[in-house]
């Protein structure tokens, strides 16, 4: 009887320990959201940074644990101050998505720097604590590390609570969180408050990274991603901005995951986080513990910078077309290959620029549409033996239909909630692909996908592939331009600019978002399908969050909503780095910097928003 319970006690202990770490991340996010009014996507990178600083202190310099913790706190706080001062402070008064995207850029840079300095390989991070286990129930034990994490977690929580409730600065932080305009008027310096919360939040995050590293005795730079996601889920569950909510959100998430793994197995672990996140976003976007607020005023909510699109003169257009047409004839297979890449990214970027730009749904999950198109086309061709020339457009249709159904719950959301929801939906798609082994091959992926061909004619050589992609890009670009010139062009943009006014004139926002996702989903599905047949192998990581972020960066670089801009952005961010091989190594660094500098200095992109 008791022995049946024993694993559950273990799951509970484990869930609470991990939940403690999630709570540290979530509290940091809540502090920053409350005071600086932004979602900090760099939180996971600070977490990794803390882990690596911890490794330097504990494993490399062999410093004692208390000193290590202290150094991690100080270094992470410093990093937080740098992020605030140079990353987010210049964006005050801009839309929340602007700051959110900049923190994504900062995260990319930190991650890449950690990789360059410490190599991408995992490292061991021993805690140096004596490994004693205490029996808390027959057969169930709790280790020194568990106690350390629980202790540090509660101590930080308690210290933070005392600081916020007892000190003058803490009072000022709470006042700023409640109403930053009023706080400014009574003479609270919000810049300093922002800096302080970034320092506090980052030190919590850094300590979280150190503890997790010790817990698993393993660190690597890719842990950032997971930490960011879990922190955001926990913070959203608790209600962004609520500190007690963040703690409870963290613990609830840790426990759910732990029990979920116990029941369904480890590969389902992240599914819980994202399903919970989605449910919260749909049913209680204000979190479990807060009341709904008032809708924002118009003209402040959109991320679209006011500008007019640049029009390229006819001769320039003709010259570009000529170059693009003769490029593969130049006889440089490597250049043709790069051209193919740029065209596929261009196809994906055009579809995202419609969704994120024209109708204003800044999606962080666009890669899922490519994944659906890719898997659909590959399965039709490989399992059913249908001709590739048919399965590729079919992939587009499946992506349009399925993608629109999946994103449907996000249609009632606005602003950064859409970004987070689309990211969650994309992660759920990836996890379904990973776990639906019977259909998708699961973690083994799909291999032996038939190459590009029309009937018996094989078109898989680089030159033919190039022209197929070019043809698709041109057709889709012309169609999209036609769509933008029709009444839909203005209707989609009206929904983006002011959903409430659009409703008053008969434009239901959901309907027009749906139309954008139908067309955009088709284009993205095509891009995914082409990639699948080109690579001949795909798995659940082929189309991941990094791809979504890259395509979004391309779109912002070109100018949101701008078709030519999407293509130009693809050439600049995909083709150029590959032409210069030394740069290709530091790709993430380039993307991160591009994102930060663009949003700061040229939010309308190179060719202007449309």
């Amino acid at each position, binding site marked *: 009887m008791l022995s049946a319970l024993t694993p559950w006690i273990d799951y509970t202990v484990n869930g609470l320990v991990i939940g403690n770490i999630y709570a540290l991340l979530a509290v940091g996010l809540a502090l920053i959201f409350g005071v600086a009014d932004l979602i900090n996507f760099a939180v996971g990178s600070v977490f990794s940074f803390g882990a690596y600083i911890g490794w330097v202190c504990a494993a490399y310099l062999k410093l004692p644990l208390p000193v290590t913790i202290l150094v991690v706190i100080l270094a992470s706080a410093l990093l937080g101050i740098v992020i605030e001062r140079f990353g987010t402070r210049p964006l005050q008064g801009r839309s929340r998505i602007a700051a959110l995207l900049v923190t994504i850029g900062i995260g990319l840079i930190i991650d890449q720097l950690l990789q360059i300095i410490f190599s991408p390989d995992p490292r061991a991070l021993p805690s140096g604590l004596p490994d004693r286990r205490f029996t808390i129930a027959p057969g169930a034990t709790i280790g020194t590390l568990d106690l350390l994490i629980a202790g540090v977690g509660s101590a930080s929580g308690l210290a933070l609570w005392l600081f916020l409730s007892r000190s003058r600065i803490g009072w000022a932080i709470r006042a700023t969180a409640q109403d930053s305009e009023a706080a400014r008027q009574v003479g609270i310096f919000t810049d300093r408050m922002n800096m302080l919360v970034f320092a506090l939040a980052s030190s919590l995050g850094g300590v979280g990274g150190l503890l997790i590293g010790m817990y698993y005795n393993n660190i690597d730079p890719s842990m950032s991603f997971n930490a960011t996601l879990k922190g955001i889920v926990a913070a959203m569950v608790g209600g962004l901005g609520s500190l007690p909510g963040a703690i409870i959100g963290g613990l609830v998430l840790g426990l759910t995951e732990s029990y979920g793994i116990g029941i369904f197995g480890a590969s389902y672990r992240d599914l819980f986080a994202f399903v919970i996140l989605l449910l919260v976003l749909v049913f209680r976007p204000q979190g479990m513990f807060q009341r709904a607020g008032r809708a924002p005023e*118009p003209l402040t909510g959109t991320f679209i910078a006011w500008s007019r699109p640049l029009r390229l003169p006819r001769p320039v257009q003709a010259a570009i077309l000529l170059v693009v047409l003769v490029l593969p004839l130049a006889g440089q297979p490597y250049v043709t290959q790069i051209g193919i890449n740029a065209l596929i990214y261009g196809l994906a970027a055009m579809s995202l620029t419609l969704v994120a730009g024209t109708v204003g749904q800044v999606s962080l999950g666009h890669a899922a549409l490519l994944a659906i198109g890719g898997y659909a086309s590959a399965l039709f061709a490989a399992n059913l033996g249908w001709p590739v020339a048919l399965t590729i457009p079919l992939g587009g249709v499946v992506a349009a239909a399925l993608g629109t159904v999946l994103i449907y719950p996000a249609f009632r959301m606005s602003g950064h909630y859409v970004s987070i929801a689309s990211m969650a939906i994309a992660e759920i798609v990836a996890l379904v692909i990973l776990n639906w082994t019977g259909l998708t091959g699961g973690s083994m992926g799909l291999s032996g996908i038939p190459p590009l061909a029309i009937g018996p004619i094989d078109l898989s050589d680089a030159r033919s592939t190039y022209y197929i992609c070019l043809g698709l890009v041109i057709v889709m670009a012309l169609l999209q331009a036609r769509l933008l010139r*029709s009444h*839909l062009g203005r209707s989609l943009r009206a929904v*983006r600019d002011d959903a409430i006014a*659009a409703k*008053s*004139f008969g434009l239901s926002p959901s*309907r027009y978002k749906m*139309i954008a996702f139908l067309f955009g989903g088709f284009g993205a599905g095509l891009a995914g399908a082409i990639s699948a047949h080109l690579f001949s192998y795909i798995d659940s990581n082929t189309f991941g969050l990094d791809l979504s972020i890259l395509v979004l960066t391309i779109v912002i670089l070109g100018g949101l909503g701008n078709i030519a801009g999407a293509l130009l952005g693809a050439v600049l961010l995909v083709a150029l780095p590959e032409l210069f091989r030394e740069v290709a190594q530091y790709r993430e660094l380039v993307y991160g910097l591009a994102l930060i500098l663009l949003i700061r200095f040229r939010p309308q992109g190179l060719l202007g928003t449309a």
Partner: protein
Amino acid sequence: MTLLSVETLSRSFGGIQAVRDVSFTLAEGETVGVIGPNGAGKTTLFNLLSGHERPDSGRVAFAGREITGWAPERLIGQGLARTFQHGRVFANLSVLDNVLIGASARLRYARPNWSLLGPLGELLRALLQPPAVRAEEAALQAEAQTLLHRFGERLAPRANHPAHSLSYANRRRVEIARALAARPRLLLLDEPAAGMNESETLELQHLLLDLKTQGQTMLLIEHKLDLVMQLCDRVIVMDDGAVIAAGTAAEVRRDPAVIRAYLGDSAAAKGEFTQVPEVTL
């Protein structure tokens, strides 16, 4: 013939009773003013009529149909259009496109009514552009240009400028043009003259008088009493969510309850007021 009838409409936000038991009717062709101090509940009343808020209780009938709680998307199809107090133009759209959006609900061919497949049909027609869709669009474009010319030299020369580049007064004009493009049976105007100087206000007054002579039914929230006096057949006065007086402008401005609401008790003794202090939120 009665176009709009409102019965004991109420709406509260938390502890604030923004609209309480408001009842009135509006006949076809009438122009009625709604006045009252800031926070009286005028805008909330409009939001209830246009479907942006749902009433807690009471009912609204429009052209003989019960429309209580209908969504804005549906009400515009019945012929109920509005402007917004704080200006809600589509900032990135050109002036012309803003006006064209006003006519969205009138699109017959471009927006097929196929229930679940409607969005797909709308997308396909936009891509294929069959002749009927093109003809409809061309007719609307011409109509929108004509509409812009009603505003003299204010809007027509700026037809292709993005709305965010316009002056405040011009944005108000765009809002009115956009609402007119819907060919509404009832036009709700929320402080259309706010932020306009005297000559601009006069210009607006001429435009609205024009509309009135053409038989346009209007409900007008306005702080500038001159405009209200010149334009409105009747006036409804609200304070603290409730209607405190109703009648012709001349009757209402001598009503002690109205004077008290605007100027406080001490001023009530003096008898009449002419200018409402203009305060914007």
